[in-house]
């Protein structure tokens, strides 16, 4: 069997129809993202979506680089990067909060949808609106209190021991992420009110992710 045969086997179209594997065509294409907001706000929203995507990718790449650099430092230069752990902490916070908003945009948050899916559509739509509204409210509440938390941190002047930078620098992503996530769920609620169909997010109609195979 040549390498090419094997690659074809990997991409067997029959298999792809049955199974969702993390493969290229499953990736979110940011250039096709359409904002739920009108006019200039929409342009801003699309730009934010792009930034979130870039932060996610860069964050993960930097994390790998930082971790490897620490190993190299330890063995090659006999010197650990003592700030390595803190930098990874900063990155994981960045990734998480850039990601929750990005996930909300694309309807990727984990939920247990068995009962929801079993309901008739007339019941599902108001429930989806309720879900979006409540989730948005929770996110805005957390936005408020994470701003408060960041402010407290800033006022106390706590420093990261190794990097010697203020702690609040690495946690400002929390309020930002909560806010943008809240915004996405608000838009989702609106989209469900004004549009037909049931929307998991402004850009994702229910059933986008092969619910076909579900027997629940």
């Amino acid at each position, binding site marked *: 069997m040549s390498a090419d045969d094997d690659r074809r086997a990997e991409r067997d179209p029959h298999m792809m129809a049955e199974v969702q594997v993390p493969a290229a065509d499953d990736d979110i294409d940011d250039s096709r993202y359409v904002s739920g907001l009108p006019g200039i706000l929409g342009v801003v929203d699309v730009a934010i979506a792009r930034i979130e995507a870039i932060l996610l990718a860069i964050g993960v790449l930097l994390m790998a680089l930082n971790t490897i650099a620490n190993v190299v430092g330890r063995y090659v230069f006999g*010197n650990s990067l*003592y700030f390595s*752990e803190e930098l990874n902490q900063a990155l994981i916070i960045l990734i998480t909060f850039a990601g929750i908003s990005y996930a909300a945009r694309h309807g990727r948050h984990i939920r247990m949808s068995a009962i929801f899916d079993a309901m008739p559509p007339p019941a599902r739509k108001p429930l989806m609106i309720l879900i979006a509204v409540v989730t948005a409210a929770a996110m805005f509440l957390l936005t408020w209190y994470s701003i408060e938390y960041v402010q407290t941190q800033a006022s106390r002047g*706590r*420093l990261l021991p*190794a990097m010697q930078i203020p702690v609040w620098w690495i946690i400002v992503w929390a309020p930002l992420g909560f806010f943008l996530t809240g915004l996405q769920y608000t838009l989702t609620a609106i989209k469900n009110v004004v549009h037909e169909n049931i929307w998991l997010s402004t850009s994702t109609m229910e059933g986008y992710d092969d619910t076909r195979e579900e027997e629940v």
Partner: protein
Amino acid sequence: DTWRYAFEEAMDEVQGIFAQKFKEEVEANSDHTVQLFPFGTLGESADIMEQAQSGILQFVDQSPGFTGALIPEAQVFFVPYLLPQDEEQLATFFEESEAINEMFPPLYEEQGLKLLTMFPEGEVMMTTQEPVTSPEDLNEVKFRVMTNPLLVESYQAFGATPTPLPWGEVYGGLQTGIIQGQENPAFFIESTKMYEVTEHITRTGHNNFTTAVMANLDFFEGLPEEEQTMIQDAIDVAFDHIIDYQEGLTEESLEKIKEAKPSITITTLSEEERQPFMETADEVEQEFLEIGGDQAEAILEQMKEDLEAVASSSGS
């Protein structure tokens, strides 16, 4: 009322014993109850400190090493060979030191905390895979230290490769060999089973682990005077208790370790052997003066004065 008290160790480790005594005293002398929250149950060291600052917790025990991020001066306790190695002198020093009792409290107050006491937790020892008698033996040894610039500096000056590793990975790291050394007081080496995965314990006498108990400032100042006194009395009783408790604790812990692992060697370095380690202290002191905040110099000077006073009075 219910008062909440969180600390960085398990219930039966030194901070826990102190907290239990404090609880006992407060509950015997007032109508208040004290709930104790050991290591990890309300978050890590920095988390419980913040909770004490915001008043969710009334009391917190945090070691000055961790407080360094907030009060850089507190890192003075990481300057090696500063504190006396004699336990009695050490106890007297903590009771009488002007630096500790006069200079530190205002620094804590700026952070919304009432400093109630500082107390020693025991002599810090090195555990390694190869015997250590001089800095040369630490050459190329990957030594796990907490993420603190002064500790990193200390071990660099000793000649080791300071390697920060999260606490949860230390045991495994010693077992597989990513790191070949770490430092802690004897009771902690015993309770966390670090001795299972190391071969040698070396008493270099370079430091004594120090910790501090604080109350939320607004809470404390809002109390009537007799309750403030009651708390301070409880702290004093707990302080005496913990000093008594620790008398012989180090030896006891070392005996337990020896019993559980007869092959382990425990070496106390002689004054001569300590000399080359001591000579590195200046470098770390300089580093402390640089990163130790506005009052670094004043505090270091005062501590040295206090230490001399204690040494001369115990000598006479």
